[in-house]
């Protein structure tokens, strides 16, 4: 970029617009086949097979949720056991202090609560949300990504990035409109 004689805005990537989800999935698959790695697709609803086509290899989110649930479970059991046997023992007719069956409901509730909060915060965190600014919003027609259009973006960070080649590649795939997205 430093070789540019005049100051140009840095390019984030090349964005292609498609009208149908099948075209987008096909394009993503071809782009991956052609060797592009740094890319993402933007769609108005979740599309079957798209993350596979982009080469996304699963998420650790279920593990985060499991950990959250286990922490909630341990917190609830620990809190009840500690208070009922050590900090505030209450002798009710000589019954055992660690009366675990009556600890079950609260343990269940806190397990679910912690797991649910981990699911939401984990999802947002892994997705990097909230994110107030992102370059793709600079594309003039990007607002349609939340309505009825399907976008594929090959990012400038890709080792094979070459604007001219990618433009031709997208045009071959039947993209309706191709724009360079400014950083």
């Amino acid at each position, binding site marked *: 970029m430093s070789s540019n004689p005049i100051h140009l805005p840095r390019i984030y990537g090349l964005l292609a617009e498609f009208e*149908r*989800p*099948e075209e987008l999935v096909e394009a*993503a698959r071809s782009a991956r086949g052609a060797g592009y790695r740094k890319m*993402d*697709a*933007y*769609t*108005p*609803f*979740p*599309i*079957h097979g*798209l*993350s596979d086509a*982009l080469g*996304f*290899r*699963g*998420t650790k*989110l*279920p593990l985060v*949720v499991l950990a959250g*649930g286990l922490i909630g479970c341990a917190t609830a059991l620990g809190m*009840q056991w500690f*208070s009922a046997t050590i*900090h*505030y023992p*209450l002798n009710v007719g000589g019954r055992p202090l660690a*009366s675990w069956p009556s600890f079950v*409901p*609260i343990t*269940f*509730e*806190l397990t*679910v*609560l912690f*797991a*649910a*909060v981990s*699911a*939401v915060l*984990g*999802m*947002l965190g*892994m*997705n990097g*949300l*909230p*994110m*107030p*600014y*992102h370059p793709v919003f600079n594309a003039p027609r*990007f*607002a*349609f*990504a*939340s*309505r*009825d259009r399907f976008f594929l973006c090959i990012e400038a960070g890709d080792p094979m990035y070459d604007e001219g080649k990618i433009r031709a590649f997208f045009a071959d795939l039947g993209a309706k409109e191709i724009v360079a997205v400014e950083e």
Partner: protein
Amino acid sequence: MSQVHDHGRGGPPVIGPGHTYASVTDKISSIVLARRTPLFWLLGFFVSFLLTMVLLGAVGYLFAKGVGIWGVNQPIGWGFAIINFVWWIGIGHAGTLISAILLLLRQEWRTSINRFAEAMTLFAVACAALFPVLHLGRPWLAYWLLPYPNTMALWPQWRSPLVWDVFAVSTYASVSLLFWFVGLIPDLATLRDRAKRKGFQIFYGMLAMGWRGSALHWYRYETAYLLLAGLATPLVISVHTVVSFDFTVGIIPGWHSTIFPPYFVAGAIYAGFAMVLLLAIPLRKVYGLEDFITMRHLQNMAKILLATGLIVGYGYVIEAFMAWYSANPYEGYMIGNRMRGPYAPIYWSLMLCNIVTPQLLWLKRVRSSPPALFGIALVVSIGMWLERFVIVVTSLHRDFLPSSWGMYYPTIWDWATFAGTIGLFLALLFLFIRFLPMISIFEMRTLVPEAGPLAMQPIPEHSVAGEEG
């Protein structure tokens, strides 16, 4: 998932013909983004706001004078507050049931009703949660219900169902809120992108948190949504179970029964679906949403109403049977007193509302008529309120010792508080339909014909089959 779209199977379609991604998006978002607020909205909101002010007055007077302004006294220490609490929390069950259990069961017809059913859940739980706090006597000490390090060195009593209730209801409210909000994020992004006015763009933009529909985001989003549904499913069942423990752990005749948890859960779903019908039928009419909330939805909900109504009826029959079969004189007296005592008219109205009326739903003609469904849902809602009245009042008013028998008469303040919570519920609902999309836009996009088999139905197949590497 070979046949994702079962349009036409078993009656009317789940979405009207001729819709596209764009038409679905525009139709639902235009309700929120319209500049003009419709007249019926202003009128409805005005009336419910007035009722909310009645609630404010009733609660203000209660805080000034204490629970003596209510009709509760010995032996009926649990009056309207508990009846209304159980009634509202029951209504709050349909939302999460529709969004979680029907999602896991792949009932795609849930898509157009889940959003406002979830909102309804939240508002009903908010109304419900008011009552236990109001009836505390010293409501400003409500935080004593929570475990926190305190100078009194005291802890809640973990063996008490009332403490379980605090955890069950607050967890249910929190998880329902998370579920609802996560479902809203992509739609908030749609509203952000479609809003013309700067203020709305900023408002929805902040709430959407920068959602841009990235494929990788969708992937994690669907995983999170599925996990939330899995977590919310046992939660729905647990909440009313724990509420029923409030009764069953007591040794009062008519309460001390093992049928209570399942019968309460069925009753909650019954009341909840009745309320969803009560709201859906007028909403689809005034906003012209008949293409999205079709007769298919109404018929399916009517069937669920019938099924849960039958379970509830079974509960009533078993209660009477066990009173006889157990040969316990107090139980026997309790059921005889319900049927022939001073509150007998309420008991028989309850049977009429909850067992007899829903039998009309066996007829296809009734299930296909929105006005008839509206009427039945209204009767069922009243019936479920009467059921809680019968459980709470008739059991307490004559228990073991005839010298301590008594009667319960609600006062004007009891009625004002109850009417006020209905106002609060409706006012919140009116605000919701004006400012947030009442139908999930992104899920509706997956139902239109052009989406075809690629549109990921609520449950992504790869998440079910496990993640391939």
